[in-house]
């Protein structure tokens, strides 16, 4: 008896080698495997090719505050035919260090055709008393035009927090100063006010040659060279101590896949999302196929009344609408990704269980099973040693075929806003895109790539599954 069983598992090993040989001949299957391997290597390399902290900080918007919002990928420059400003971070250099006055210079070398998306300066204090320091910001352009700190500073602000962040596009005083400057050279600027000046136009004026057209959107010749931001902070008391001043010249383009409305690097989200998608897809499929296998074999083996009862239950689960039920559960509990996997598995086994049952019913009638039963083998033994090994190969094909559905359902849940709120998923990225009207604003990089990734993962598993099915079901090979 034992020898016989060992033979069966030996057979299985041989069959697997045969199978691997056959699989190599299946072109579609190899394509699927190729896509999958690329995705898996990207997922493994995620800490090196993407921001290693992006995974746990995806929903921590403060982490992304320095990044430009909703800017396209760097490579769109090829289509624009213009060089766009890169994302640059420059620390202030101390030029004067007194006990109550401290001065910094920030020198930005502008060498692009399109100006930065914005300028942000962070002031970090090592210690701040309740005697608030006064901040002055001046600017000298390459053409010599100067916003001097003493006569006409860009801005003048009382600082009350130990980590103050200055956005040039939110500072109406700075905007007015820059507009006044433009009015001296460009009559078009007289129609503009600080309230209606868009961040893009503000940047254009700042980084254009001083002549007519500099304040007309899309016009304006770039003025290359060194822009020096001069910063003076009246500390008033030696107890107020600076730590650093840091300027962020936000890129007009960013990274490989651009950013979303919150400044999140989409490349990092996409790459880390591979982990989540693969894990949800594979785990869900493995669990539900395993349930289906056990259920189907048990039902066939027990037969009679029990078989009927189990098939009734199967029918009921099969005719349950998965998405509405999942939505209720998810809305009630905002589940973690693990619970989503469990919920998905609970509803996706009945189809496979039916197939397994009918296969097991056939195998049950075969002579070698009858022989085993006649020689007194127990039920569990027959199922484990004779029936299950015959069905196992189909199980693997079904695992592959079940992955796309699981990934699509999870993406749908995430898209509706019911995903795990602690991790980045492609569905959530698309949810944010939809909630912020990305399609109507032509933020295509935010919309196109996540969906393509969902499709790619689904496709790779479908191709693998179909190839496996073709090999295991000889009848399909003819058609």
């Amino acid at each position, binding site marked *: 008896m034992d020898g016989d069983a060992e033979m069966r598992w030996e057979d299985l090993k041989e069959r697997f080698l045969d199978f691997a040989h056959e699989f190599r001949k299946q072109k579609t299957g190899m394509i699927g495997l190729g896509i999958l391997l690329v995705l898996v290597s990207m997922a493994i390399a995620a800490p090196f090719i993407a921001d290693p902290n992006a995974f746990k900080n995806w929903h921590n918007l403060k982490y992304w505050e320095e990044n430009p919002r909703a800017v396209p990928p760097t490579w769109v420059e090829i289509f624009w035919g213009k060089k766009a400003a890169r994302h640059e971070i420059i620390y202030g250099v101390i030029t004067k260090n007194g006990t109550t006055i401290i001065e910094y210079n920030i020198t930005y070398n502008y060498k692009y055709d399109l100006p930065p998306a914005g300028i942000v300066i962070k002031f970090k204090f090592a210690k701040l008393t309740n005697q608030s320091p006064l901040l002055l910001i001046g600017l000298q352009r390459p053409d010599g035009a100067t916003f001097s700190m003493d006569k006409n500073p860009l801005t003048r602000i009382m600082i009350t927090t130990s980590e103050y962040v200055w956005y040039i596009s939110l500072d109406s005083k700075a905007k007015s100063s820059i507009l006044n400057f433009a009015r001296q050279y460009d009559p078009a600027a007289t129609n503009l006010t600080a309230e209606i000046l868009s961040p893009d136009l503000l940047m254009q004026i700042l980084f254009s040659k001083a002549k007519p057209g500099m304040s007309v959107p899309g016009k304006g010749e770039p003025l290359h060279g060194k822009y020096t931001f001069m910063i003076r902070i009246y500390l008033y008391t030696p107890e107020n101590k600076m730590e650093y001043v840091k300027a962020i010249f936000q890129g007009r383009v960013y990274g490989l896949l651009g950013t979303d409305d919150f400044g999140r690097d989409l490349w990092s989200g996409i790459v880390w999302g591979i982990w989540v998608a693969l894990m949800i897809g594979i785990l869900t499929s493995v669990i539900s196929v395993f349930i289906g296998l056990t259920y189907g074999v048990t039902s066939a083996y027990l037969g009679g009344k029990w078989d009927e009862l189990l*098939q009734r239950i199967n029918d*009921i689960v099969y005719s349950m609408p998965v998405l509405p039920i999942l*939505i209720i559960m998810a809305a009630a509990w905002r589940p973690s990704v693990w619970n989503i996997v469990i919920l998905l598995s609970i509803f996706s086994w009945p189809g496979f269980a039916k197939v397994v049952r009918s296969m097991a019913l056939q195998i049950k009638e075969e002579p070698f099973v009858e022989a085993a039963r006649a020689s007194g083998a127990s039920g569990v033994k027959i199922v484990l040693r004779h029936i299950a090994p015959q069905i196992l190969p189909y199980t693997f094909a079904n695992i592959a075929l079940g992955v796309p559905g699981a990934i699509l*359902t999870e993406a749908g849940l995430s898209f*509706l806003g019911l995903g795990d709120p602690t991790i980045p998923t492609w569905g959530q990225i698309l949810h944010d895109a939809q909630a912020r009207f990305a399609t109507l604003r032509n933020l295509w990089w935010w919309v196109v790539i996540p*969906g393509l990734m969902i499709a790619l993962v689904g496709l790779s598993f479908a191709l693998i599954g179909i190839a496996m099915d073709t090999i295991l079901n000889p009848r399909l090979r003819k*058609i």
Partner: protein
Amino acid sequence: MGYGRYLVIRSLNAFITLFIVTLLISALFNVVIDMYAEAWIREQLQADLQGYIREHPTATQEQIQEYLKSRERIYRARWMLDKPLVYRILLRTFNAMIFKFDPALQLTAPDGSRDTVKIILGRLPNTIVLFLTSTIVTAIIGIYIGLKAARHAGSLLDKSVATFALITNSVPMWWTGMLFILIFAYYIPIFPPGGTHSIPPPPPGLPSILDFLWHLALPLITVTFVSFGGWAYVVRNIVIDVMTQDFVLVARAKGLPESRILYGHVLRAAAPPIVTIIILSVLSSLSGAIITETVFNWPGMGMLYWAAISTNDLPVIIAEGYVFTFLFVIAMLIADLIYGILDPRVKVGW
């Protein structure tokens, strides 16, 4: 076995499914609403305590406790927490099955009421219009292409259908919608990006109908584009399976024209499985379609989901879940019944 008995058994089957799913939903809802109620009662009691102490500064500890207990009894009765758990779940199940739901927390019906049933009924027609038209269009295109592919098995068309079906099967329908909006409403602005009518709405009559159809076009194209490949592939497989059977061989031997064999003999024999599989695939694409509505700002049940989820309006989510289950089970039942009519050899697995 007679068709009557088949009908009764299948209907009973559908009813049991409906009951079990409703029971499940009600149990889930009960857990959530109980948590909500407990928190609400705690808050109320805190407020009552403060008010009581202000009004009765000389009250003893016992009097305060007495008062709080009486208030708590009232609140618990209001949330039915004084009744056993099983009673609450069964009552909610029964109410759901006669379409009686708790009022919405945030959302309102077109007339401003918080009646959940009214809210859903206001949205249902839009979903039905979109879903019905797209199903019909998909069926016509899918079956036609499927038959063509089967007739020329192994041809370029056949292979393209298989590839196309495979790809559209892996693509989220709602994402395709977003993509189509980018292409056909932004880059080549031939369709509106969403909604059911222009703003301001055109005059009633023909212009209004044309405007509606114009808004319907892009969501319709999206659903059809993603679904018809899968249909064609299924139809093709079933038809090829039937074509290898003896009676087709006989028809061919008799010298009947190929088109008559295909549309007369083969399609008739292939109809039952095609109908079943197609109804199943319609149902499985339903979830994609309800999410797609959101993308097109199409004010149907799917968009109601989006609104209910973003305002955490649980009664609406529950009611929608039940209505969807109801429609789903009814559709499954219809599939079974049609199968029974088309295929006289029906066997009941009961």
